[in-house]
């Protein structure tokens, strides 16, 4: 049984990586969309404070553009770490969804610290070295993350099941996602409280995975927790929860995608490419004129009148 759990772990990580890469590549390989930005655009420097853009200048194409990474960070940090948009526009949902997200963030931080412990153990670091300082923080992040994730997932599940406005738009995918998180974090909580309070089993399990040492899993509840964790890892990027990484494109490429076509070879090359795509729309003002590419269709006037 133990070896199956180890193999499930490898599979989950591989599935996770493939799913993430697939989604990213699937987005990137699509043609560049037309500009569809929404203001305020965070990198517009001082103008971002009131929602302005470089288009507020006469002859804007002759001027240097101010593109502020600090401005983007000022928006991204509160959005990522505090879910600012939900706070501002959907306050009744904020506490439940923030509990859930904060729980996940803490679990991610916990995993980061756990990996430090793992590598410390792998290089033969004694209990007195880094591990001593990292472990208490790790335990706090792990415990708090599990509790918040559990509270958040159950709370969100309850909201989606009971509140009419959310229920109408919630499908089984929502319920399965949240129930899976609730189940995984419940077992994780039991494991932490009663089986592995110092996360040493977790550390040893990962060391074993890295060293391909498939030692028996010391406890069945711990084993169940690992199975559920691996299912969650593999499953997340296949659901709408993949927004945790796709949000980068949704913000930076779409919402803030204001890069103008001024001496921009990338954009020009793209325009040259897409204008040669075939068009197969069937409406009479598009089809039936013998025009087959976007360039031909867009430069064709179906109702042109002879010059008088």
């Amino acid at each position, binding site marked *: 049984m133990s070896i199956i759990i180890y193999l499930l772990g490898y599979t989950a990580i591989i599935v996770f990586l493939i799913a993430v890469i697939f989604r990213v590549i699937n987005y990137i390989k*699509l*043609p*560049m969309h037309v*500009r*569809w*930005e*929404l*203001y*305020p*655009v965070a990198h*517009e420097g001082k*103008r971002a404070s*009131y*929602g302005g853009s*470089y*288009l*507020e200048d006469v*002859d804007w*194409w002759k001027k240097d553009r101010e593109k502020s990474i600090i401005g983007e960070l000022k928006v991204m940090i509160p*959005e990522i770490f505090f879910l600012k*948009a*939900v706070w*501002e*526009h*959907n306050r009744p*949902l904020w506490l439940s*969804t923030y509990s859930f997200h904060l729980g996940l963030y803490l679990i991610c931080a916990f995993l980061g610290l756990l990996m430090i412990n793992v590598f410390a153990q792998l290089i033969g670091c004694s209990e007195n070295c880094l591990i001593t300082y990292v472990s208490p923080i790790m335990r706090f992040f792990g415990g708090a993350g599990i509790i918040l994730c559990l509270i958040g997932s159950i709370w969100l599940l309850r909201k989606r099941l009971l509140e009419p*406005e*959310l229920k*109408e738009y*919630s*499908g*089984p*995918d929502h319920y399965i996602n949240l129930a899976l998180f609730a189940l995984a974090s419940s077992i994780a909580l039991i494991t932490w409280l009663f089986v592995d309070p110092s996360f040493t089993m977790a550390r040893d399990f990962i060391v074993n995975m890295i060293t391909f040492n498939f030692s028996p899993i010391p406890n069945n509840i711990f084993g169940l927790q690992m199975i559920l964790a691996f299912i969650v890892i593999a499953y997340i990027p296949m659901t*709408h929860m*993949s*927004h945790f990484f*796709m*949000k980068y494109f*949704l*913000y930076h490429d779409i919402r803030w995608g*204001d890069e103008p*076509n001024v001496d921009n070879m990338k*954009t*020009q090359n793209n*325009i*040259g490419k*897409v204008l040669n*795509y075939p*068009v*197969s*729309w*069937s*409406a009479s*003002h598009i089809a039936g004129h013998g025009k087959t590419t*976007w360039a031909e*269709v*867009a*430069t064709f*006037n179906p109702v042109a009148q002879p010059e008088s």
Partner: protein
Amino acid sequence: MNAKKKISINDISKDTEKLTSVKNEDLMPLPSLFVQEEEWTPLSDDLKEKYACILDDTIILPIPRPKTVQEEEALVNQFLSGMRKLFTKENNWTFIQILETTMNHCARCNTCSDACHMFESTGKNEMYRPIYRSEIFRRIYKTYVKKEPFAMWRYGDLELNWRTVARLGEMAYRCNLCRRCAQTCPIGADNALVAREIRKIFSQEMGITVPELHAKGSMLQLEKGSSTAMTKLVVKDNVEFIDEDFSEETGFEIETPWDVEGADILLIHNAGEILAWPENIAAFSIIFKAAGISWTLSSDLAAYDSINYGVFYDDVQFARTAILHAQAAKKLGVKKIVLGECGHAHKALTVIADRVLPEELNVPRESCFPLLRDIVMSGKIKLDPSRNNFPVTIHDPCNLTRLMGIIKPQREIVQKICPQFREMHPHGPHNYCCGGGSGYAIMSRNTIPEWRYKVAGRKKLEQILNAFSDCRGPDQKKYVCAPCSNCKGQLRDMFEQYELLDKEQLIYNGLVELIVNAMVDVEPGFVKWEEE
């Protein structure tokens, strides 16, 4: 029991007379404006016989009502065919990246709901919830186009029949495309875009379009040169009349230049201004002459009308019009195109066309507002702000502000020349749509005007009245600066409906009119509160 609360997603497919009806008692009250809203005028039997009038009390998109089972199936199949094309990069390279991410990542958390002015104005009628339309579209996409395993079970069941298609098409025209919902989305999904993409399926695949936007809009522009049907001879005549009339009225001699090769600027007006608001055309000519600007209009096909209704419903029509605009500029050899006071024309040619126009047509394009700001601030024209000493507020056209980030230039101007300027709240990129956005302002068929007053424009009217809360009533003249033809069309009709000139001495007009009204070289009284 309130009828609006009964609507669920699956009601879209049901064999009912209509999906919903916005009742007067559900409408958001207007501040201190005591109006008795009329009940909806019933749609005529003839209309119901010919078209699928099964959504609510209005019909904007005339979808032929299928008469046989075969016609019903054909409607569904055509829609699915278009939807499949919508998710191919060849047919929809313009938006497929944005559409797919919205389809896949919307959490259906309802954060966007309260951002929608129509949802608020109708007392939260479910049909106006931004994700109602999107969720129906998403379920069809996942089940019938993407064919995800167990899609019906995972995302929710939905019966796809002709009613689903017809209602979805009509529902795509219950959105102003203002994208306020998208602005609030924590993830970055864009439910307004979904409305536009549905419109595209109907236009580009099924050939079903809104007549004002297509046959009498973009097609007329391609045929005659303008959606107003003005040919180049007529438009030049009309502008000549405007020059004569306003030279006499203002005492400031103007002669609008046409087809001047090598001019610095090609100015493109919304041609609707020439017919409906000639003072706007005259004001530009006065300001540019006074400032010594080298400029011209073009009489080439479509180049004397900046409208590009393709932005609202059809990518091909959009591209055709944008190319004609750029070709005219290229032919004249101007240094840049400047867009007059028209919001969607701004966004179409300056922003969206930026990734459509090939290098040889990539003529620099800019808004008129920064140029006007520089003229006003430069001191090239003498201005007397006391001539504008009445309460003024600015309406922010969505296309200009939320979608382009042009916020300050118009404010710097009014702050300089209008002593009693005050903001609406919220404003700038967070403004509310006038209610005429995405072309409704030019529609007056059947009950569309009623819908525009009651639903689409209600929030804006509330904002306007609140902006003048300190000077309500007929004793104080008030001015809404709405620098966009479409917005002005909506405000014109709404002000007339609620008799706001009589009750509030409230008028609307553009920005250039305020500038000319303050010019000391022009006879006083350019801005008028009634026909004089």
